[in-house]
């Protein structure tokens, strides 16, 4: 067990507890087992075979993986690595005991096998976007616990898959910055509009954007499900696809995918050829907000709204992008920014957490909505599709969806740039 779990990393934890006040699950569930310090300790004890694997299961399953604990930790504990090692061990243990149930690891597996969960989420996204959610929620039982999801699945229309962005390399148009665009799977299907807008913003400001046909999903879902081998394959495909070009940056609009791309080197053994290739790839990965901050955007149209910003956890705590989105927000004409309390606290969406752990996710969402209500915005700005749908859901649950809009940062900037 010591070899399989990241036992070494657990020793970096000095049990100071600094991470407790930033951990959404600790705040919501009020049990030290659901805190980073508690989880690390559980993993350590399982590694030392003082506890059974089953004893750490609930603690690990209910972790959002938001990694706020890493940013605050004074001793730089690699919590993400500890978590992933535990997820893998739990998954393996389950495979062996064939006791797969609807809990996190199982659900992920399901999602990967028959794409049902992904499709379900996708449909959700589509619907939220189209109808502003209001009707869906009441009909589909989204407000009720997990089993109701089957109904949701049935209630939803088929989704028209988006087309890929055209390959727009044009040898006659030399531009300042060359970027390869990474569209991401979920984003591609349902946030095509946001991707389109992002490309348009970049192109309008003299960035050469290229879409790569051979790109595949970043691998985040597989990774979080403990499917290490599958993630590695996906990473290799993407690295291979992008290293053929001489891009300055590889750009994406999804906090979560970007985080996975930035952690590709962790998938390979240090010193190996693939590790080197991954490092080179990762050095170029940027969030759209970082690129937009580099450009002199012509934001001429006022966006007269009162906005709060709900950052993507992985954009902040993994990609360490804090300032650039704020820069953008502060520069949008007409936009009044309101600093929401605990804005960096995870909203509880966390991949498919809100599907497999519906009740818990809603508890965390309630914490978030309390702060939204105090801030009284007319707009919530997001940077990740998962957060986007969760915030919509939150507004709906609070009956605020008529007064408050949810928009991706790219949409807001596009509006200000008069791009549609």
């Amino acid at each position, binding site marked *: 067990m010591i070899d399989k779990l990241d036992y070494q990393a657990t020793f*970096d934890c000095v049990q100071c507890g600094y991470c407790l006040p930033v951990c959404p699950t600790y705040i919501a569930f009020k049990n030290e087992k659901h805190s980073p310090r508690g989880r690390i300790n559980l993993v350590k004890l399982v590694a030392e075979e003082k506890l059974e694997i*089953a004893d750490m299961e609930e603690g690990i399953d209910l972790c959002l993986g938001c990694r706020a604990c890493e940013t605050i930790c004074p001793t730089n504990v690699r919590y993400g690595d500890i978590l992933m090692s535990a997820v893998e061990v739990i998954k393996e243990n389950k495979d062996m005991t064939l006791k797969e149930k609807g809990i996190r690891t199982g659900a992920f597996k399901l999602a990967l096998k028959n794409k049902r969960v992904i499709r379900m989420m996708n449909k959700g996204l589509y619907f939220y976007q189209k109808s502003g959610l209001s009707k869906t929620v009441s009909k589909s039982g989204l407000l009720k616990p997990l089993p109701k999801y089957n109904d949701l699945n049935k209630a939803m229309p088929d989704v028209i898959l988006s087309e890929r962005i055209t390959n727009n390399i044009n040898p006659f148009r030399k531009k300042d910055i060359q970027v390869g665009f990474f569209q991401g799977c979920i984003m591609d299907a349902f946030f095509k509009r946001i991707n389109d807008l992002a490309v348009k913003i970049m192109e309008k400001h003299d960035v050469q954007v290229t879409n790569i046909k051979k790109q595949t999903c970043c691998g985040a879902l597989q990774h979080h499900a403990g499917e290490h081998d599958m993630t590695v394959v996906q990473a290799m495909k993407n690295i291979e696809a992008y290293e053929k070009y001489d891009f300055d940056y590889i750009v994406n609009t999804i906090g979560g995918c970007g985080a996975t791309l930035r952690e590709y080197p962790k998938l390979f053994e240090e010193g190996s050829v693939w590790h080197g290739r991954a490092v080179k790839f990762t050095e170029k990965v940027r969030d759209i907000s970082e690129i937009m901050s580099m450009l002199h955007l012509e934001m001429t149209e006022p966006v007269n709204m009162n906005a709060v910003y709900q950052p993507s956890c992985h954009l902040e705590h993994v990609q360490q992008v804090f300032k650039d989105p704020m820069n953008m927000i502060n520069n949008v004409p007409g936009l009044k920014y309101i600093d929401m309390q605990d804005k960096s606290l995870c909203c509880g969406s966390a991949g498919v957490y809100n599907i497999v752990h519906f009740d818990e996710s809603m508890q965390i969402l309630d914490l978030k909505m309390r702060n939204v209500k105090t801030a009284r915005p007319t707009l919530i700005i997001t940077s990740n599709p998962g957060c986007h749908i969760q915030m919509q859901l939150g507004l709906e649950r609070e009956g605020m969806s008529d007064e408050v809009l949810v928009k991706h940062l790219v949409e807001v900037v596009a509006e200000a740039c008069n791009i549609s």
Partner: protein
Amino acid sequence: MKEDIRNKLQNVLEDRVFHKTEDCISYGYDGSFGQHIPDFVVQVQSTEEVQSVVRIANEFNMPITPRGASTSLSGGPLPVEKGIIMDFSQWDHYLEIFPEDLLIKASPGVITGDIHKLADEHNLMYAPDPSSSSICTIGGNLAENAGGPRGVKYGVTKDYVLGLEVVTAQGEVIQTGGNTVKNVTGYDLTKLIVGSEGTLGVITEATLRLIPKPLATKTAMILFDDLYTAGKSISTILTSGVRPSKMEILDNNALNRVEDYAKLDLPREASAILLVEVDGDPTILDKELQTIKEALLQIGVDKVDIAENKEDEDKLWQVRKLVSPAIVESGYTKISEDVTLPLSKIPDMFKKIDEIKQKHDLNIVVFGHAGDGNLHPTLNTNMRDQNEVERVEDAVEEIFSYAVQLGGTLSGEHGIGTMKRAFMTKELGESGVQFQKAIKTALDPNNLLNPGKIFPIAGEERLVLRNE
């Protein structure tokens, strides 16, 4: 029987009772060493609930260990004899300020940082400032009599407590002290409870004293070529007529580790650096630092850097803040000691620690609150290397013994808990320990409140870090 206890606890607290191993195990550690598993964890939220739990514990003769945020560095909240962990971390809803009386009242689970914030909003200050204040509870601070960097000017937790509500080992409620600074009605039980590490009673409410918030601060960094002069300068500064609000020292090892870690352009060759902060009316701060500078010049210290603006000041304090992260090495465990000495003895201690470091071939850095003689020699230890752990145990023991020999004490602020109980007799003598024990026995004859803490266990003569 366990079933009976559980039912009774659940009658009082409903779902705020944990009994499964996988839940209880997370309440079996703190910021020091050791892993234990309590039988139950109860998340109390009122004085009545505390009373009920204490009565149930009495009925079944089951020990109770109070617990705040479990940031203790001495083993205070460890349930070493199992039983019930009484968790206060969720009882944080009562916090009320009385600005005209310069008072704050708080329930035991309130986080110290929230007290600072509320006081600050009213232009007041709650002075005790343990570095853990963003997470530790006021109950834990009271039970450990926590200190902090501001101790040199403002004192420690005990200097800011006016009154307490306490549940006794029998489940009765008593009030100690009151709402006034002056109060000599009977024994000073407030001070007895403060620092008693949860062994004499359970704190259920505190009345704390506030002071006016200083208007501004200013900081200087002083470099030293040798440790002896560094030590001497502490007394020189404190007798110069100025009263600094903070005085933090870092030895050469600590300094270099921070430099390795954060690349701040620190003078690597300095034997030590001292950070000195003065606070108060902004118009006199420059003058005060000037006085310090002149006094130091008398003893040949001339490297004094004064931060010109807030930004530079923050940068200087960043150095001190980074010590902890910088000295943690991947895979190693940090063992922080807490010896406190008469000021004139600080240079001797530095010298001794250097010897011990060589002798046992260990990785030791020293930093601490120089102004009140409180040093934190910190040992980075590979806890999986049996031999190294033994050498660390020896080293810590030598540091303790030398501190006592110099007229100092084992612990300035972290408490005795389990970590230092073996050395109590060394410092207090047999009759000293017996006198304290008599108090414990009188108030808690069945030894139900936090057993296994403070007092040496028969036969235990040294520090044991191993935990098998």
